[in-house]
């Protein structure tokens, strides 16, 4: 076991993936000489060469579009989008090409791209540097969307994403980049949890709280705080946003009868909407109360001095838990 930060874990995952397969190439802005603006790719150009760690011109559509061509040629490109809010120029290539080429060609052409996207807020950045665009991609058939919450998952899931024959959007919780954790670097991938698996991060009995990415840590802290008040929260780390692994969520909700979903992205048509709808469809008779969403607001990402109001924090999660439990909460008495 090694102790490393989340960025170091991704770096180790990239290094391992490149050692495992000479067809793995990295592409992105500032990822080579600089090592990435977050230093995720630090040292990789020096060790693997500029033909495998490619500093690209500043054009996201071209980063994705040329990666499509490389994939046609048998490469496994790992693209870095520097910040969440910079992905939109590449949106067309992702949605119209990357996601659809396997189906369009009846499985003849595979698109084993990994698209790394640092996402989410809480780092005091200007506009376009703190967004949570994951739902756009979850809504797009043909893509897989994952988000690790800790260094071990960051390492393992990165390797799984690169090994996958499907395109994978890999959302990195940039607020947790410097969080350290124990990472087992040498365990065989086959022994790790599936890339698509949701995992119970903390067991509990009263409420099921589903989170992903940076908010898993917050959810775990909320569970600790609630325990002091005698409320037992089961935290589920979603890990895979597309496809969602419903089995552990359903199993949990059938025990707790209550579901809270939290994310930084806005509420409307977000992951919370999908999870609430599906769990209601499939666990209706087990639910004791309506599912609750604790999310960012349906607003453009606010200036950083206001972001603490936008981002779900421990208290807002506990307020949501109180709503699920029917305890007094901030919305008590508010008309529907």
């Amino acid at each position, binding site marked *: 076991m090694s102790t490393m930060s989340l960025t170091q874990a991704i770096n180790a995952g990239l290094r391992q993936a490149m050692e495992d397969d000479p067809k793995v190439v990295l592409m992105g802005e500032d990822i080579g000489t600089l090592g990435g603006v977050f230093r995720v790719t630090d040292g990789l150009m020096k060790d693997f060469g500029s033909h495998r760690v490619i500093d690209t011109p500043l054009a996201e559509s*071209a980063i994705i579009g*040329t990666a499509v061509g*490389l994939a046609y040629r048998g490469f496994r490109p790992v693209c870095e989008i520097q910040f969440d809010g910079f992905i939109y120029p590449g949106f067309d290539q992702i949605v119209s090409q990357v996601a659809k080429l396997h189906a369009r060609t009846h499985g003849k052409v595979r698109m084993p791209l990994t698209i790394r996207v640092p996402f989410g807020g809480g780092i005091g950045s200007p506009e376009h540097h703190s967004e949570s665009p994951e739902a756009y991609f979850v809504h797009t058939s043909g893509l897989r969307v994952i988000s690790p919450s800790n260094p071990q998952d960051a390492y393992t899931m990165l390797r799984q994403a690169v090994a*996958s024959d499907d395109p994978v959007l890999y959302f990195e919780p940039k607020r947790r980049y410097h969080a350290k954790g124990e990472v087992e670097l040498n365990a065989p991938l086959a022994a790790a949890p599936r890339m698509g698996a949701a995992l119970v991060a903390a067991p509990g009995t009263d409420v099921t709280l589903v989170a992903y990415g940076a908010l898993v840590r917050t959810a775990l802290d909320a569970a600790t705080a609630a325990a002091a008040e005698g409320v037992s929260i089961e935290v589920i780390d979603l890990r895979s946003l597309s496809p969602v692994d419903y089995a552990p969520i359903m199993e949990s909700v059938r025990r707790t009868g209550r579901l809270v979903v939290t994310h930084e992205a806005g509420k409307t048509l977000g992951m919370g909407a999908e999870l609430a709808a599906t769990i209601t469809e499939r666990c209706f008779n087990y639910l004791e109360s309506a599912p609750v969403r604790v999310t960012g607001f349906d607003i453009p990402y606010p200036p950083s001095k206001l972001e603490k109001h936008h981002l779900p924090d421990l208290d807002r999660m506990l307020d949501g838990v109180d709503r699920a439990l029917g305890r007094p909460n901030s919305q008590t008495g508010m008309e529907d």
Partner: protein
Amino acid sequence: MTQTRHEPTGQAAMKMHQLITADGTRVHDELLDPFVQDVDRDTLISLYGDMVAVRRIDVEATALQRQGQLALWPPMLGQEASQVGSIHAMDQADFIFPTYRENGVAFLRGAKFPGIMGTWRGNMNTGWDPYELNMATPQIIIGSQTLHATGYAMGIAMEGKETLAMAYLGDGATSQGDVHESMVFAASFQAPVIFFCQNNHWAISEPVGLQSAVPIAGRAPGYGIPGLQVDGNDVLAVLAAVRWAAQRARTGGGPSFIEAVTYRMGPHTTADDPTRYRGVTELEEWAAKDPLARMRTHLVNAGMLDGETEAGISAAADAVAAELRDACINIPDPEPMTVFDDIYAEDHPVLDREREQYRRYLASFEGQPGAGQQVQGSAS
């Protein structure tokens, strides 16, 4: 707003390279001549025969659309020289990234008619295995494929192979960001890629002058890519120009841009009505530059086309058309459950559940009068 330009006017016209004029005269071109020195009578006949076949395919497919056998067809009438000349310059190992209009190219590359027609009949999104033909399937998003070709060529460069990628694009595509980004990337990484732009003068209803204030090929040097303008209705000149670009690509010369100046004589697709946006004078002008007529005149004047050969070419084209029609009308309707096929390469439990639910839904009609009609009826 000023009036829309019909032709780029921002700078003096470029030199348009040509080897056979509209009246069939062979002229000399210093740059292109060396690339067609080996072209003998058989090759010329083959180029002409392929153009006749491609035109015959276009006529047949247009008729099939009018008869309700195809949902849509994008005619290539007038662009036969550009399609035939360009694909004749490619080796089998070269990889082609077409638009949706390169159905003549696909035919000459070896695509079978059930595949070519299946896309336009609505049976399938793609008609061939790209790795069998070394040709991607039709791209409908305008300009998108230029990035794929560039990325593919970057891969070739990384491997140090002496092959290339060629992207087809149209004049309208040259306004797309993807096309400009692809030229930036191609130049930066010296990718062995050919941008083969068929300037057919019309992007549905919009004239080329709206897309570009300067000749399209004149933009390429700004990216550090040589740009060549060629008569796109001159099959020999197109062949030579693409050979020129291919030689550059194969010998480490990097990307090239070719603008083949041609004309879309038909509608954008069978759903289009060009009488709403262009007049007959322009059509008559371009009819006089017809790629087949000029080649035929050239061959006849050179004593290379006798009646027997011409009859053979015509009969072969008719046979191709008959094969096309037969293949098209006999494409079986796709099975309903195939809508779920090949969305992912690996397991996807959420989609599996949808599939199972729909399978059960369809099964619920079994044994009932009119079973399955609800589903089939929606296709018409």
